[in-house]
């Protein structure tokens, strides 16, 4: 319901107790530890960053090992991550095993790296094999240089060439050479065409022949210290060996799959220690003592104070000084707490504001339901969320809030669906007509059908919008009055109530608008119009004189005031913005109708096959419609809250309380009572 009052806490004690104190605070998870004031001669802070970093690295290694395990030996896992709860005794028992487990996690990561390296080596060897393939008939190593008097040159010529042709070309390019012998090792037929040759030449003419060969587009053969055929065999052996090693490493990893739970615990353990050491470096310390300063909510004080006093430390709880950067913590009941994350997504309230969650909640659920407005979709969302919430009792707090929010949104959607007679669109009527030939059966709308009278729903959308906006303005007024700024409340809120409210009432006296456009049955009498116009005018005059009250100069002030009145166009667009309630509500219903019509068209008169086709189209169509429109309803509900509603009063800019806590991923420790 509100922002919790905060207290500043100061804990002073002997250095030997500091770990115990920190561990206790971490377990309680309610105190934010602030950085020490500037260092001086007496107090220093110990830099524990290196240990903290080391623990984080260990936690990361565990996480990497878990990922490897998941790839090679996937564990059965549910849809959502859930915490495992253990008690303190079990925790201590497991902590003792952490060192051992860490070694195993390291080994998994190392083995995985080995697999990656070996896997990369195999294609490299295969390419070597391919390059050597044309030379495999050669019975000397390719790096053989020749005898005392001869030189051996191995290489390839582009294209398919015969021996005679090669001799002819050489003799043309090097006419004086005569002591050489050319041998074709192989010719390859497929792309690229090439001829592998071996030339043996007398050392005196080697340069001559080489020159000639270069002119013939000659390139040297790859080197091999063994005969090419033997080399290929050895490469193949290497590949086999690599594959075997990969398989062995893989099996070694899979054999460690049982360690998964231990590695998870070790991850949490090191993540927690990293946080603790991080906090440690934020303490102000002397040679023998330490001082810890921080914030906590007032209601959490009794939770930690008695225990701390038992620990031989001095605890001092005081009210924060004005102007201090106090963090914010929100507290709400089950119905309104899901809104906290919506608020946090925008910005946390600052310490001077009220927590808007509670006021927002009802509007949020109503608007979401109105935009989706289909009973079947609502039931699907409600049941899905309810099942998740009961099945995964220990899910992360943020996820839980999100689920709860959609649970309430789903309930609201169901209610609106029945009010508007939507259940998978007009599915009841379509099924009755197509399969039972009973076009008279349909789900009656408890209130009215939006497709039949969209104007009526538009009017209600505007009414909801005006209420929403006026409540926002009301919060602004409440805050100003609470702070003693009664004049401000009149200038900034009451005048606007008069201007906007007066204009709205005035609109309600125009018969053309009311009856022809909005199809309403009542019109306010003309006398009301006069009164409402006068009220609106008074409001406008008030705004002209007060909106610019920051300026001393009267001319400037009136100019600013006139600009202030122009803000009425802002209200017009704000109210019009709520027409999305109608548009999105209609969209869900009409698109559902489209899919029903399509399914019915295909199924008509086809008997059993028709029923199957109907079900297929129906399921796919409605799944898509639900997904798209639930997303739309979520986005636009948020928009109405953030832009139209928050725009009227909300500042934000607060900082959320960030307590030292057991920030784990897989395990939670239950405290013994």
């Amino acid at each position: 319901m509100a922002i919790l009052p905060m207290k500043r806490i100061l804990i002073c004690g002997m250095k030997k107790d500091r770990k115990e104190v920190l561990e206790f605070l971490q377990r309680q998870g309610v105190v934010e530890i602030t950085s020490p004031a500037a260092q001086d001669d007496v107090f220093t802070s110990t830099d524990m960053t290196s240990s903290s970093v080391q623990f984080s690295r260990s936690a990361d290694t565990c996480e990497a090992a878990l990922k490897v395990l998941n790839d090679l030996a996937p564990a059965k896992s549910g849809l959502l991550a859930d915490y495992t709860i253990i008690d303190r005794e079990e925790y201590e028992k497991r902590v003792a095993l952490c060192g051992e487990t860490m070694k195993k996690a390291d080994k998994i990561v190392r083995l995985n790296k080995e697999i990656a390296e070996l896997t990369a080596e195999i294609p490299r060897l295969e390419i070597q094999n391919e390059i050597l393939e044309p030379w495999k008939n050669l019975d000397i190593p390719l790096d053989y240089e020749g005898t005392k008097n001869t030189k051996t040159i191995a290489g390839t010529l582009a294209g398919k060439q015969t021996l005679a042709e090669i001799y002819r070309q050489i003799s043309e390019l090097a006419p004086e050479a005569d002591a050489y012998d050319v041998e074709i090792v192989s010719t390859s037929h497929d792309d690229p065409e090439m001829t592998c040759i071996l030339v043996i030449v007398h050392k005196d003419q080697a340069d001559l022949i080489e020159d000639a060969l270069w002119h013939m587009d000659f390139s040297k053969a790859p080197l091999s210290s063994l005969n090419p055929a033997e080399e290929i065999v050895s490469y193949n052996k290497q590949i086999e060996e690599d594959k075997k090693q990969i398989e062995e490493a893989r099996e070694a990893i899979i054999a460690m799959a049982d360690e998964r739970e231990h590695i998870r615990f070790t991850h949490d353990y090191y993540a927690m220690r990293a946080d603790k050491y991080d906090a440690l470096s934020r303490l102000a310390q002397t040679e023998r003592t330490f001082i810890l300063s921080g914030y906590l909510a007032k209601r959490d004080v009794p939770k930690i104070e008695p225990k701390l006093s038992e620990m031989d430390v001095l605890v001092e709880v005081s009210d924060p000084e004005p102007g201090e950067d106090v963090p914010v913590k929100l507290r709400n009941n089950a119905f309104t707490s899901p809104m906290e994350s919506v608020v946090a997504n925008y910005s946390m309230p600052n310490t001077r504001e009220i927590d808007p969650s509670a006021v927002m909640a009802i509007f949020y659920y109503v608007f979401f339901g109105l935009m989706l407005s289909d009973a079947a979709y609502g039931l699907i969302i409600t049941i899905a969320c309810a099942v998740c919430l009961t099945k995964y009792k220990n899910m992360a707090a943020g996820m839980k809030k999100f689920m709860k929010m959609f649970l309430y949104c789903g309930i609201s959607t169901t209610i609106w669906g029945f009010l508007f007679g939507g259940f998978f669109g007009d599915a009841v009527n379509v099924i009755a007509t197509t399969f039972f030939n009973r076009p008279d059966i349909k789900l009656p709308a408890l209130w009215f059908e939006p497709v039949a009278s969209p104007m009526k729903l538009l009017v209600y959308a505007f009414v909801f919008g005006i209420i929403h906006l006026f409540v926002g303005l009301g919060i602004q007024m409440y805050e100003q009055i609470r702070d003693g700024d009664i004049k401000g409340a009149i200038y900034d809120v009451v005048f606007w109530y008069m201007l906007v409210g007066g204009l709205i009432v005035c609109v309600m006296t125009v018969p053309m608008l009311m009856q022809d456009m909005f199809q309403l049955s009542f019109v306010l009498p003309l006398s009301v119009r006069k009164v409402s116009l006068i009220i609106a005018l008074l409001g406008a005059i008030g705004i002209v004189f007060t909106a610019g009250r920051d300026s001393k100069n009267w001319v400037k002030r009136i100019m600013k005031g006139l600009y202030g009145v122009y803000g009425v166009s802002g209200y017009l667009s704000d109210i019009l913005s709520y027409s999305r309630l109608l548009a999105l509500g209609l969209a869900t219903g009409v698109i559902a109708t489209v899919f029903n019509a399509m399914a019915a068209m295909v199924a008509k008169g086809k008997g059993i096959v028709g029923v199957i086709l109907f079900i297929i189209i129906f399921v796919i169509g409605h799944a898509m419609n639900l997904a798209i429109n639930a997303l739309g309803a979520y986005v636009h509900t948020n928009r109405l809250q953030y832009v139209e509603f928050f725009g009227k009063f909300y500042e934000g800019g607060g900082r959320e309380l960030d307590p030292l806590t057991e920030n784990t991923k897989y395990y939670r420790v239950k405290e013994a009572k």
Partner: protein
Amino acid sequence: MDNLGMVFGLTGAAIAALFAGIGSAVGVGIAGQAAAGATSEKPDLFGKVLVLQLLPGTQGIYGLLIAFITLSRIGIMGGQAPTTVQGLLYLAACLPMGFVGLGSGIHQGKASVAAINLVSKKEDQFGKAMIFPAMVETYAILALLISILSIFGIK
């Protein structure tokens, strides 16, 4: 020339589905490229960027909606064939959705690209990132509203 009304009406339905559909296709397309890029760097962001990618997709659905309502009233999927004047009225009624859908779909896509960039840099700002593309959609919703009210208003 008896069916001229129906021809105009169908043209209107086609314009609504056509242009709004193109707008959304372009918007979701460019947002999808950005989303894929963001996911290649941070696979964990998939869920969030997918939501942002889908935001410009609604124009196409609104276009479909207008087209369908029109079809169900001009004797193609129900209702009866309109007169030439009524047909022209249907055509006019479909124009806002078609054209605004085209423009807003493309520009909402661009806003989505920017929002995806924002989320890939600051993951916790998802709530705000979602609002920027949603601002553009306001105009598609207003056009949808006028198109719907016009179609329902044709007697």
